[in-house]
């Protein structure tokens, strides 16, 4: 039942690794996952690349579509855009110089602090919020939030700040610099703490094409760097270091790092449940008088990103410690203002429809009514034994012809009790959902 829509996400189920444990179907905020034939399947057009499934998967069967590290060697100039929280993965005592040298030794020719662009972005954001007619303005920073709004809260799309996020602005800075230097043989790589940003770079929204060449998985790269450090590898290569960053830049990716710089009544919200709860209220117009909202789906923002290895609280604390040592301004800010600020506007973001039943409203109404009646037949315990996350989801699937009504184990037991279903039939249904192997060799 893998639906291949035009949207391509950054997550995939590795069928050979998946054990069909169903943990993922329970945590998906858009209910995009089902178990069938003993394996989890993603409904691509509902996936928002938040990575909640990745977090709970016990066998690492959720694959991340990052780029192969070796592809960096296709270019002469190889820039790695490094978020501050990468350095915070290590113990505070480990000097940055050591990490930079290892990154160079591993193959990059230049390293740059991603949040270099936030100082001018915050200025531009303040102007944007001041002039915005639709309030509150929602930050465009977290790609999973944008996708969540596209799928579940389309009426709030107009609230999203139509300015590029920091990574794209820093990448733009490099693109323009290489252009000025007449260099074409360059690759800009981004070291990502989450899958949302991979999706955002590979299939961006708002009529924009990212200058980022490839995305490197931070979890993978951390291991590579840490191993090199532990093995004390000899440093034979030189790397150009562009470490310019302000104290505000260092803190931007953690909770409150953005909202505290925006004038007016602002809020910062993190964690998927909090985010959904808040967006519901915002959509109902229950929330009034707020100018700007920073929203990130991970708890503790990017410090809690799924590819961030270290404990999120320790990571955030390291960032705070480091920030205290950094200057308020950095010397590249005028360049960012000159070369990037005029080009950071994006276009309207289109909704990604979650139409469940039918484009024809009459048909859809009938189906919704059937689903409502079916739901009353189901026990309401959301056990997931049918392969769907909730009884409600199963009812919808049955109406859409994607599941059978006797997939419900309660209903099946009733049928067996009445003598209307044989044991053999019951087993077959179970095998259809959970795979044949599960019921052999015990």
């Amino acid at each position: 039942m893998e639906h291949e829509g035009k949207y391509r996400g950054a997550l995939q189920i590795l069928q050979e690794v998946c054990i069909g444990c169903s943990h993922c179907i329970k945590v998906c905020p858009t209910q995009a996952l089902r178990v069938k034939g003993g394996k989890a399947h993603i409904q691509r057009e509902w996936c928002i690349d938040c990575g909640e499934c990745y977090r709970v998967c016990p066998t690492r069967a959720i694959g991340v579509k990052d780029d192969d590290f070796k592809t960096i060697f296709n270019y002469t100039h190889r820039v790695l855009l490094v978020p501050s929280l990468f350095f915070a993965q290590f113990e505070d005592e480990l000097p940055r110089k050591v990490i930079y040298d290892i990154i160079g030794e591993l193959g990059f020719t230049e390293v740059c602090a991603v949040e270099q662009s936030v100082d001018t972005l915050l200025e531009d954001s303040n102007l944007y919020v001041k002039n915005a007619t639709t309030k509150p303005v929602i930050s465009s920073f977290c790609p999973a939030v944008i996708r969540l709004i596209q799928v579940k809260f389309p009426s709030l799309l107009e609230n999203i700040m139509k300015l590029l996020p920091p990574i794209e602005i820093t990448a733009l800075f490099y693109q323009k610099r290489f252009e000025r230097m007449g260099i074409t043989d360059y690759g800009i790589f981004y070291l990502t703490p989450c899958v949302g940003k991979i999706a955002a770079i590979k299939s961006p929204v708002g009529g924009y094409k990212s200058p980022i060449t490839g995305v490197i998985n931070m979890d993978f790269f951390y291991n590579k760097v840490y191993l090199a450090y532990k093995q004390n590898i000899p440093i034979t290569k030189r790397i150009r270091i562009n470490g310019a960053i302000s104290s505000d830049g260092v803190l931007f990716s953690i909770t409150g790092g953005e909202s505290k710089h925006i004038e007016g009544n602002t809020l910062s919200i993190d964690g998927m449940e909090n985010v959904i709860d808040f967006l519901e209220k915002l959509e109902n117009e229950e929330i009034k008088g707020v100018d700007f909202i920073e929203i990130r789906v991970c708890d503790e923002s990017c410090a809690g990103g799924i590819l961030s290895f270290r404990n999120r609280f320790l990571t955030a604390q390291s960032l705070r410690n480091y920030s205290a040592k950094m200057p308020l301004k950095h010397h590249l800010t005028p360049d960012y203002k000159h070369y990037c600020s005029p080009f950071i506007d994006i276009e309207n973001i289109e909704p990604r429809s979650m139409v469940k039943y039918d484009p024809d409203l009459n048909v859809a109404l009938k189906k919704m009514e059937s689903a409502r009646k079916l739901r009353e037949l189901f026990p309401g315990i959301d056990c997931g034994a049918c392969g769907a996350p909730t009884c409600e989801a199963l009812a919808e699937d049955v109406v859409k012809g994607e599941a059978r009504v006797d997939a419900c184990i309660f209903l099946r037991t009733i049928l067996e009790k009445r003598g209307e279903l044989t044991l053999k039939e019951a087993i077959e249904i179970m095998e259809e959902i959970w795979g044949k192997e599960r019921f052999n060799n015990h």
Partner: protein
Amino acid sequence: MAGVASSEVKKNLKQLGVSPAVIKRVVVALYEAEVNIVAHAYRGVIRVEIAADGIKMVLEDEGPGIPDIGLAMTRGYSTASSTVREMGFGAGMGLPNISENATNFTIESVPGKGTTLSIEVKFS
């Protein structure tokens, strides 16, 4: 709790693929009406009927009723206490706001008995 009915209705309309702009009007109107029941009445029943061309919502409450509907429909007129106002409600925009978002809107009220609001929003 105010907001429960509007959230439920919103979910259904989204599943049906009704346009976000129309959903917003429905939700805003219904939420305002829900708040009114919670703020003024003793109890109330909300009946919602969704058809292919639009949605009808009838909110019937047992409560103090509205002595002067014309006055209640005036922007900024409010009987809310200062406590309620401090909570961000009671600005006297409720009924006018419902009226603005509805295609058809009627109020029937018997002082001392209760109020019935009929709100209809057409989908196109």
